[in-house]
């Protein structure tokens, strides 16, 4: 295993959309990500879970510099990703790559599989032409595809194979960090296991650091070392994979865990679990106090007034709630 000590550090990341001046009005500001901080040790997998609109994908895209960062710092090893510009940013992209959710739309249908995986090598001018060819063949084998499949087009692959291609493309520049945005959500259940096992093997062999975005708590529990739960642009709870599931503290985390149907163990009493009502408030008009207060079954009057800070509530366990 390579010994790479670079780790991802995200400090007070904010991504706001809109807010520009229209002809007569000021456009509303969407607080997609609003002050997110975490760090990932090298070789570890950090998971972000949350429902749609929680800002988990925007966090991933901001770290990848694929959406403009409004404020905050993102550091990978010794590189401050969030402050790079133009050519420096392009060159630094070698170190961090992304695997997208939809293996159908994230591969160019007019390119052959070999070209798709080779493109980052060409763009980054890595190695000689012959070395690049050998590297592509090598990558195909690493992700469990046959080298002769390089000549095929994306539509000739199944969904799972396409996600393998996406992984091979991300691996081609030998990055330190791979951001995985819901990499298995679009796949059939039997294929998910194949891809998750492949990702775990690649991490072990290559010492990769993963930032893993998902809404599927079962998958996150399986693959991540540390997990942050996001709600409306902020982290509400963060802990290692065992603590978060055995000792959840934030009412939102509890509700999220209770909402997942269980296959094993005795059927829980459906009437006694925490049932959330309604939908999250809009990220345009944010409530004054705790953002979860309007749906929280335990909310007290002060929750609607005071903003809870994300604070230490146990060894390596952080929570943002006034009541814990």
């Amino acid at each position, binding site marked *: 295993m390579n010994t790479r000590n670079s780790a991802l550090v995200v400090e007070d990341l904010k991504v706001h959309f809109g807010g520009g001046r229209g002809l007569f009005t000021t456009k509303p500001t969407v607080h997609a990500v609003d002050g997110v901080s975490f760090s990932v040790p090298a070789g570890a997998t950090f998971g972000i879970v949350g429902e749609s609109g929680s800002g988990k994908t925007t966090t991933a895209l901001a770290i990848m510099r694929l959406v403009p960062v409004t404020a905050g710092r993102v550091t990978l090893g010794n590189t401050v990703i969030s402050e790079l510009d133009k050519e420096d940013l392009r060159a630094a992209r070698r170190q961090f790559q992304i695997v997208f959710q939809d293996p159908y739309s994230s591969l160019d249908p007019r390119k052959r599989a070999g070209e798709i995986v080779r493109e980052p090598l060409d763009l980054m001018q890595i190695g000689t032409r012959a070395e690049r060819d050998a590297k592509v063949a090598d990558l195909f084998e690493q992700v469990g595809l046959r080298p002769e499949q390089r000549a095929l087009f994306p539509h000739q692959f199944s969904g799972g194979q396409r996600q393998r291609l996406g992984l091979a493309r991300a691996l081609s520049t030998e990055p330190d960090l791979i951001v995985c945005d819901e990499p298995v959500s679009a796949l059939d*259940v039997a294929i998910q296991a194949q891809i998750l096992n492949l990702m775990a093997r690649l991490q072990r062999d290559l010492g990769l650091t993963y930032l893993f975005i998902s809404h599927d708590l079962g998958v996150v529990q399986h693959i991540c070392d540390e997990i942050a739960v996001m709600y409306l642009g902020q982290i509400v709870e963060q802990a290692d994979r065992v603590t978060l599931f055995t000792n959840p503290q934030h009412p939102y985390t509890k509700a999220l865990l209770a909402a997942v*149907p*269980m*296959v094993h163990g005795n059927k829980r009493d459906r009437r006694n679990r925490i049932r959330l009502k309604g*939908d999250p408030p809009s990220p345009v008009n944010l409530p004054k106090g705790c953002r979860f207060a309007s749906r929280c079954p335990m909310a007290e009057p002060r929750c609607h007034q005071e903003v809870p800070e994300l604070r230490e509530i146990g060894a390596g366990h952080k929570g943002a709630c006034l009541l814990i």
Partner: protein
Amino acid sequence: MSAPLLSVDDVVVDFKTRAGNARVLDHVSLEVASGEILGIVGESGCGKSMTALSIMGLVPSPPGKVTSGSIRLEGRELVGLSEAELCEVRGRDIGMIFQEPMSSLNPVFTVGEQIAESVRLHENASPKAAMARAVEMLRAVEIPEADLRAKAYPHQLSGGMRQRVMIAIALACRPRVLIADEPTTALDATVQAQIFDLLQDLQSETGTAIILITHDMGAIAELADRVAVMYAGRVVEKGTVDTVLSDPQHPYTKGLITCVPHLEPEPPLVRAPLPEIPGVVPALTELGMGCAFAPRCGNRIAQCGEAKPPLEATVGPHLTACWVAGP
């Protein structure tokens, strides 16, 4: 079990394709009693949605065709009914909830009008009475401020609310069978839990039979009474949810249960790799003589490649189609 309300008996559906004949349903038999929830589970392409479409008489034809078999609702044969007769059945006797609430609602009508439409058609209700029923249905699916929301267009509602509207439409004429095709796939976990609770509440009030189509064993465990596991157009295992989940007989069912990382209340410290089902679902035009799962099966014996195993009882009413798992 009481007499089945809806029975699907030995149904075969064929699709003519350029690659040859694809048998998308291969002698499928299912039954659901009133007040019961039957789960159908399987990967994409296994025929679970096609089962729903054949019950609704919505198999796209051509290229598809119900080649043989019978589908009976309270003894009345549905296969071979004319389009006009089927229109009477759809919506009134059998309601259906589709997977994608956004694309299955009409964007240019208010949700109230869309619910009222089926009441007007099937019960000859006056527009006013139909709209009153629509508001009542919206209240039943727990949409707040139902009389205001009835005047909203689909784009003004969240995904969870749209799916509630779909349920309201499907239940507006109090059908005896409700088919829910992946009703929560597009929704978040907390909203999914709300919809599951709602389906269960509505069912205990009305006694509607529900056919729940899903790929999620967790959803089956949570909601269904009985389950049918489908693979490549065939039912490979069928039984009560408790017996199938705790004691699966077919290797495909076992694989489906173990290959998914389920949320554990006490996660193990050391993570073993997930058990995989190797390979992919075969093309339906390339099925051989034998068991369709044999190429991916670890317990394969010579017989598996030669003939398709019949669906037979292993333990009591628990049926399995496997040469190896047999009694």
